[in-house]
């Protein structure tokens, strides 16, 4: 359960280009199942996801995750929560060029310093699960869109997070690949992962597996 209490996010506060991306938001979100944040571009979906995923701190208000207050943690501790609790799938896959698929998948685990052999096995296991074992030693920039997206999913799963956050995951995929992606996400939900997706793609928020849709407009609930 994630609880938001009067959460606001403002950029460039006090300057002429001040933007209120999220305003005074009160909301309770079930972490199980698939939740979609829906809304037009600029409505504050990404800003909200970033705050939920401990990537940024609200300018004011509080966020509780399973009863634990997250919103006033210093960056150092936000990072700890983030890497153990959340896995991220980004709109522009954000794989690191020049590194192999396997290395990209293992990256989030480096700061946790697991046993190298075990980490490798785990990463290879994930790649197998997502039919990427052939690609493990290819450089990430040679992947097709679908493969890159699946690599990003493997990377999001390497630290075994409870919640997966996906920001506009279908924006760079065609309908066919989008559907495949949603099937994969459905499987993850079946395995008990909580899923938070932001999207303005009907293919996503109209999907059968989606448990709830939260609509945003101008940083408020629509």
């Amino acid at each position, binding site marked *: 359960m994630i609880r938001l209490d009067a959460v606001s996010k403002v950029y460039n506060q006090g300057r002429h280009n001040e933007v209120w991306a999220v305003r005074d938001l009160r909301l309770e979100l079930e972490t199980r199942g698939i939740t979609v944040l829906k809304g037009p571009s600029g409505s504050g979906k990404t800003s909200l996801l970033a705050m939920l995923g401990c990537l940024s701190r609200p300018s004011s208000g509080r966020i509780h995750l399973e009863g634990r207050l997250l919103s006033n943690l210093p960056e150092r501790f936000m990072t700890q929560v983030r890497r153990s609790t959340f896995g991220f799938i980004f709109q522009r896959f954000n794989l690191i060029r020049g590194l192999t698929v396997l290395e990209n998948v293992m*990256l989030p685990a480096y700061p946790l310093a697991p046993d190298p052999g075990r980490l490798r096995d785990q990463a290879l296991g994930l790649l197998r699960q997502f039919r990427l074992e052939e690609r493990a030693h290819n450089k990430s920039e040679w992947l097709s869109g679908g493969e890159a997206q699946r690599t990003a999913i493997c990377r999001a799963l390497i630290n075994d997070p409870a919640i997966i956050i996906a920001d506009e995951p279908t924006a760079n995929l065609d309908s066919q690949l989008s559907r495949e992606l949603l099937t994969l996400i459905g499987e993850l939900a079946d395995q008990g992962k909580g899923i938070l997706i932001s999207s303005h793609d009907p293919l996503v928020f109209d999907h059968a597996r989606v448990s709830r849709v939260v609509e945003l407009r101008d940083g408020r609930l629509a």
Partner: protein
Amino acid sequence: MISFLRRQGYLLEYSLASLARRPGKHLGLVLVYATLVFLLASTLLFTQSLRQESALVLAESPELIVQRLLAGRHDLIPASYLEQLGTIRGVGERYGRLWGYFYDPAVRANYTLMVPRAAPPAAGEVQLGAGVARARGLSPGDYLSLRSARGEPFSFRIAALLPADTELVSSDLMLLNAQDFRRFFDFPADRFTDIVLRVRNPVEVRKVAEKISLALPDTRPILREEILRTYDAVFGWRQGLVFVLLTGAMLAFVIFAWDRASGLSGEERREIGILKAIGWETGDVLRMKFWEGAALSLTAFLLGYLLAYVHVFHFAAVLFAPVLKGWAVLYPDFRPVPFVDGLQVATLFFFSVFPYTVATIIPIWRAAITDPDQVMR
């Protein structure tokens, strides 16, 4: 502890991979960096081994030399002083030395003529330093003709060349026996150039020197330690001068390093953003970046130091021996003795790695605090 080491291992691995992915970007930096180390290290290694060399030579020289002064200038010392010096307590062995300089117009150079104490050459024969031999194109068995003080030609047979291992000192040397020396220079028979004393107890050298200047007020005792001191000061000062000049180069390097570290490409910025978003902490990024700096520094330092070592000890510091040794016609073909110590390495560190690191702290930190949510925009 294990997890700490393992984490550093992962970070190091990542930073090495990151360096390997962009070799071109770092090549220039490493080259400039290594050049700086090379210049500094060459200076240090070279002067240090000069200093070492002269200390070795001087170690065998006498503790105390007594010169006579006349109107404040070095004059020949009467042989009778030898006996008076014998009455001073603590003085052991003593003997008069004969040596002097000779200007050879043929090669426009000064030779040092000297009568060796042990095994002087036979009459009419000389032993030559390598520099003189080279300048005159002579080898053992040849004859060397010089004009004496009275203007008469003197011909010496070259019995042997002096060993080259202390060439810095012996290069311009010409050894001959006492009769030849006195005849050649028309040197008074009851005089010596100076007198050399051995003091039985080294701790008493200063006391003996004091007594000498009381007993023979027209003499000046010179202590070996004083010569050593002067040498050291001169070498240290020359090194220092070169370093002051190189400080300018160091500052330029600092600015270059700062510029390189702050001028991250968009690609690198994005990379750091990704790392932070997927769970790397600011501290992890900082450490990764410092590993990167450490790898660069180590490479450049080793490269520069090695090149300097080869330059100084295998190529006799060809690039700047003239500056450091002073101009001499009888240019000694000096082969420095390899010598490395902690002082040098620590000094070098403070002139290269330390400024590099300081220059990169703030740029690295700036990169490391990239907003983790940046990659979502």
